[in-house]
């Protein structure tokens, strides 16, 4: 598929570093699927769909700075949706979102709520004004927040906050956030022997985004994050490179 032309219809400043771009292209996608977003003349980067017509971008480098500076009427190229997406399981679920990791989890929360599941969301951020989607998540169930600096909610990491819940009572955990956070969550679930109830959405360097080039494959399974993922169950990740290293655009390992 060549990129669709998506014209930006609304720009929403979510946090000081995170912006949502609504476009005139609505994609039928599963929660957790992503699109390749082409900033013409610059780069193309993967982004989760935070809504069938929206992406939610955290400013980190050239492409995301350009995206964050876009205005209504500007346009981007969009290929997708790609990847597998999350699967709803059970009746009581917990979503754990770190930073911009809330983007793929929001549509999941909405879907789970529509299906009358019992949804608990834990949102973590560096600081209070960086908490993403606290209000929309709260429409689908209860929300607890954690900040590294304690400026809002629980002071500390999401894992500390999770400890306050009866984790065994949840049927499934959905996790997206910084890799080391995800690794910690997975470890914690593993300690309790319930790691198989988790689905984690990974980030790796994407080139093709469609499962051909091999840039995004993870060790030791050789699974492609862009096509077999980005969402994996714990079994694919426990004895994996997760939290140990990833690869840059050359294919070289970068240790965390």
């Amino acid at each position: 598929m060549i990129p669709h032309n998506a014209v930006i219809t609304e720009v929403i400043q979510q946090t000081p570093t995170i912006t949502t771009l609504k476009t005139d292209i609505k994609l039928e996608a599963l929660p957790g699927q992503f699109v390749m977003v082409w900033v013409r003349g610059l780069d193309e980067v993967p982004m989760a769909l935070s809504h069938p017509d929206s992406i939610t971008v955290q400013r980190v480098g050239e492409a995301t700075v350009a995206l964050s500076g876009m205005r209504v009427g500007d346009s981007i190229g969009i290929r997708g949706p790609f990847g597998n997406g999350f699967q709803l399981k059970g009746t009581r679920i917990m979503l754990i979102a770190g930073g911009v990791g809330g983007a793929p989890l929001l549509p999941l929360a909405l879907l789970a709520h529509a299906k009358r599941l019992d949804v608990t969301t834990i949102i973590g951020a560096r600081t209070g004004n960086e908490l993403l989607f606290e209000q929309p998540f709260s429409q689908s169930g209860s929300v607890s927040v954690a900040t590294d600096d304690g400026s809002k909610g629980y002071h500390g990491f999401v894992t500390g906050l999770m400890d306050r819940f009866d984790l065994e009572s949840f049927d499934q955990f959905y996790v997206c956030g910084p890799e080391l956070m995800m690794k910690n969550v997975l470890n914690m679930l593993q300690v309790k022997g319930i790691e198989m109830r988790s689905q984690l959405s990974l980030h790796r360097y994407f080139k093709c985004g469609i499962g051909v080039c091999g840039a995004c494959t993870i060790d030791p399974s050789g699974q492609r994050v862009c096509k077999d993922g980005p969402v994996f169950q714990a079994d694919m990740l426990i004895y994996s490179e997760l939290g140990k290293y990833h690869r840059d655009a050359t294919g070289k390992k970068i240790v965390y």
Partner: protein
Amino acid sequence: MTRTDLFTELTGLALENPTILAAGVLGTTGSSLRRMADSGAGAVVTKSIGIEPNPGHRNPTMFKLECGFLNAMGLPNPSYKEFRNELGIAKESGVPVIASVFGAHPDEFSQIIAGLDGADAYELNVSCPHAGRYGTAVGTDPVLVEEITRAAKHAASVPVWVKLTPNVTDIVGIGEAAQKGGADAVVAINTLRGMAIDIHSGYPILGNRFGGLSGPAIHPVAVKCVYDLYQVLEIPVIGVGGIANYQDAVEMMMAGARAVQIGSAVHDSITVFNEVTAGLAQYLEDKSMVLDDIIGLAHRKVGL
């Protein structure tokens, strides 16, 4: 008929079946290569490896068209030093692992081959259509191809395959140069030069502006190249280009391919190797034929 009837001897390598993972496709890491072997490839070719780490071209680097794919990866690779370890992991698969290598001149090829030892064979990429002074820049010159092949043969103690570009007036002449340089086999074809432009903005879509066309679109071109090479060369021809099912593989072998490589078709099915292999075995059984009967059959039908 059991799988072993697809056993293929190829430049001295023993392949359980004649399907091979093409260079640059899911070949970035050892574990990815191993996974492809596990899904039925009779051998695997690595991503093309060079001397220095290279991030490749800017994204977009690849996308699907109506009838194929355009890519301009730009030969991303972590350098042969870094890749050595991946090669070792790939070899755990048990199938032959062919290291694809690229360079700008004969010495670079020798250096990489010497440094990347342990491969079961080397495939010289002198055919990438979007890699500046690498790839096609060298692969269109028969003198350079012959020299590079000779240098590679000198450096390698295992077979050397030369991968040809179709973006030339006369691919057979380049194939002959490779053969003269001592190549054990030629591989045809690499991608066709192509490009696509975004009509909403006027921008070329690929970060590199243009790139290489692969997939079903190029299959008839590849069949013709293999047909022509088979007619003239004495060394085996390995066919690649748009193979997605056993019918495509049979056609390529009838054109003269001793084995086939599969690249883009992993997009639709990661188990394409198993599927092609099963289909091929069934086809041969139905026709009461063996692999050798179909290799080059199109030539025998029309009287070579």
